[in-house]
């Protein structure tokens, strides 16, 4: 997976992974919290089922994009079994790369006048 050629060779991140990374940029969170945050931020456009959520978390843990951190809440009794995840610097890099890739994509689309009222020169 590691590639010396740099971030340009990075394949696009799956939507779920990118959204999870975006959520964790605001601070660590647990599975259900991430899901709710994503759903709220996308106004219900991206609703991840438990399978999608945790298989994404699994892949991201394996690739070091996120890491599990010790439970942070004081009232441990209720949330004891909840695991909290935080974004790693690698994850942050990947998210940024993805965002830049998207920006480039948007600019290309705008150059073709696909997006009304938006031209790359304005930006």
């Amino acid at each position, binding site marked *: 997976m590691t590639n010396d050629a740099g971030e340009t060779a990075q394949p696009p991140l799956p939507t779920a992974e990118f959204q999870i990374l975006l959520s964790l940029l605001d601070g660590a969170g647990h599975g259900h919290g991430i899901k709710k945050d994503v759903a709220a931020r996308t106004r219900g456009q991206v609703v991840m*089922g438990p399978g999608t959520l945790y298989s994404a978390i699994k892949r991201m843990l394996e690739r070091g994009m996120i890491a599990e951190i010790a439970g942070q809440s004081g009232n441990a009794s209720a949330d004891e079994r909840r695991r909290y995840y935080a974004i790693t610097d690698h994850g942050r890099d990947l998210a940024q790369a993805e965002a830049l890739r998207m920006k480039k994509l948007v600019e290309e689309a705008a150059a073709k006048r696909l997006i009304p009222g938006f031209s790359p020169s304005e930006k």
Partner: protein
Amino acid sequence: MWIQNLTGTYRVLLSLFPRAFRQRFGSEMLQETRASVAEALHDHGRGTALRVWGHAIVDTLRTLAREWLGHFSTSEARRQANPDNQGVFRQKSLRPDGRRSPARFVESILQDLRFAVRSLLRTPVLTIVIIATLALGIGGNAAIFSILNGVLLRPLPYPDPERLAVVFPGTAVSQGELEDFSRGLSSGMDVAANSGRYYTLTGAGDPVEFVVNEVLPSHFDVLGARLRMGRPFAQDEIEPGAVPVVVLSHTLWKTRFGADPDILGRRIELSGRGADSRVVIGVMSEDFRPLRPDIQAWVPARMQRDSVEYRESRFIDVVARLHAGVGFEQAQDQFRACMSRLSRESFELYSAKEIQTARVMPLREYEVGSSRFAIWSLMGAVGLVLAISCVNVANLLLARGRGREAEMAIRSALGAGFTRILRQMLTEGLLLGAGAGIVGTAASFATESVWLSWLPFGMVMYSHVGMDLTVVLFSLGISILCGALFAVLPAVKAGGVGPQGLCRTRQNTPSASRSRWNGGLVAAEIALSLVVVASAGLLVQSAWNLRHVQTGFDPQGVATLRISYLESRFPQPQGFFQYLKQVRERVAALPGVESVGLIQRLPLGRGNTGGTFTIDGHVPSPQEGLPSANCRTVSPGYFESLRVPLLSGRDFLDGDGAGEETPALVNRAFAQRYWPGEDPVGRRITNDEGAPWLRVIGVVGNVRQHALRLPTRPEIYAPVDAGRARSMYLLARTSEDARRLLEELPQAIWSIDSHVPLSEERTMEEVWRDSLSSAHFFAALFGGFGGLALVLGAIGVYGVVNFGMSIRRREIGIRKALGGTSSSLLAWALKKHLACVAAGVTMGTLGALAAGSLLTSLLYEVKARDPFILMGAAALLILIAFAAAFIPARRAALLDPRSAILEQ
């Protein structure tokens, strides 16, 4: 509550994930799902929660597939990197350490799976035929099993249901007995009463009548019922003089009182049993299942200790909860001891026989009663159909196995052991079984609402029938079993091939053992089909007979509904009678109405009244016992409306009951039984000692009173104004559509008094059809299974004969070359078949006789050993067997001998 169920299902789903994934994320996924569903339920209600749940399931299933794929591809990659890469053929011989690592094992299973999929896809039509055949059998089994599960297996929806019992002295009990038992049995169980009675609710929408459960205060504890609000009954509320109170069902509270949160303490107009209004003291929780599904409210039983009814009127069922550690045997002994003690104390209350046969039985046994047997018989029939499907599939696989004999021989020559081949076949079988199981179960799940609507009333009454996890597991189980079973058969055959089989296949001669196999399969198919077809014949004949039973009345064009007596409205019986007369006149004036009448209980309806009576001048000897008959009150016009013939004398007239002497009509069964060869008109009878005499004024035709199955009992009809009845059924015959008349009736009746509850609006044809529903249900299901068995059997026989002929092509070619004519060869081919058919029919006949005797209780006017049905079924099967054999046999007979001999 249901979230718990969902969680259980989700756990099952999670258990299917690869272990590493499951251990790491399983509990988190479960928590996440539960939280999402709970939030959706809280924020948006049940519909959204279910959608969220469905989404979670679909999503998880998709992930499940992906995780396993990922799992396999990594192990595959590892395998390819492994230098001592092993193929299907030489796995066993090349194992250096002789031990299997788990990874290796999984890997070889995956290899089998891939191989099986590939080989099944090579023959797609055959694969589809096999899956469809099996899916029919498995789907049918899933459907019938879900009924069996719902009615017989699923625990009753009460806490510790296995301790719930019915205390049954042979009949219902009186209030006095109830209190005696309650005291006498207190060391072993808590006793509760159960009796239903119609009460009338007014002042909350249209007047309505429903069943109210009259109970002891212990009732809620015994059944473990929880109230949504309010309190259960207090001990003193069963005493005379207590304030009348009521606990409402959740449905009643919602539909009639708009789920009023301040309902407690409100007085509602619920009349029945001496009270016109009652104070609401509680509302039952939503998930509580009453002992009868039509119960809408609970009231404390009012103990009428000073009335004769206290000891005389027996209408209560005794439900009890056994104390922990008390078994049913022990409870029963205790109950019998209690009865003998009571008998000793108060003058021979129970006979020795009554005490000996008194029982304490599990509540379910009491509720399910005779349905138990009927359901098991259905399960047996559908099981046979599945067996036929399996034989068919075994057949098809065997036929295919022949084509693969060379493949097996080559594999075996290359070092694949018998177990390896067996496992390969097993994998294929399991794959087919699983495919068929999924298709079949999904199909019966999808059509659930259709076949549930066919269930006869008695069976749905006490049960929660429907698909659930148990049903799915059951289907899965039988799918795997079938898959394994029919896969092993050809595998055993093929496994015996060995490398030398390479030579044998070339020769293309059938082995003797193969012929035996095929013959055996044909015989088995015919035998199994015959059992199902003959049973279906018996049940269809029964339904036919029932349909053509002379009911004694003409149901066509008659509308009926029940008018209930409102005690508060008509405190004097005279008022009620006057009212009924008005109703008759009003309905008779409706356009199209030809005649109108009233009767206390409908023919073919539920319930009964009657008892013993005395004939004037006749003292019965002790041997013959007291004469007994049904008794119903009817109004003038009743017999005319149902077209029941008047055989002699005259019909009732208005005001008959008000005269000095009350007239009565008897039916023909009565006249024949008690006055054979005499004219009953003018004779006197009385219902009760001391009651006024009734003078017989005429004889009417016999009517089936209870059920089409039961013969007409002797019956006395008294005029409506001679007795008091709580409710009456109105019958109106119209020259037009009875259904349309039914819509007009309520307005006509309510135009006199809008506070009278009306219920059970039906046409008499519907009443008649309902009484046939159970017979039709069994006839339709068995008929369907019989048809299925025939089709499957025909396909099977065709397949086997076709196969048998195809492996004898050389032989047939030689025979033909030596001078055999086509017709002689056809005869030869069919003759070979004859022995198997004969064996099958013999076995099947024996099986059908056994099955028939098991079905006796479901039959009507047809003997379990009815020779015509048995012979008809056998003839049908022989015909089909030969028809199915004829096509391939003829093809073989017309074979070109040259090409057949030179083949291969």
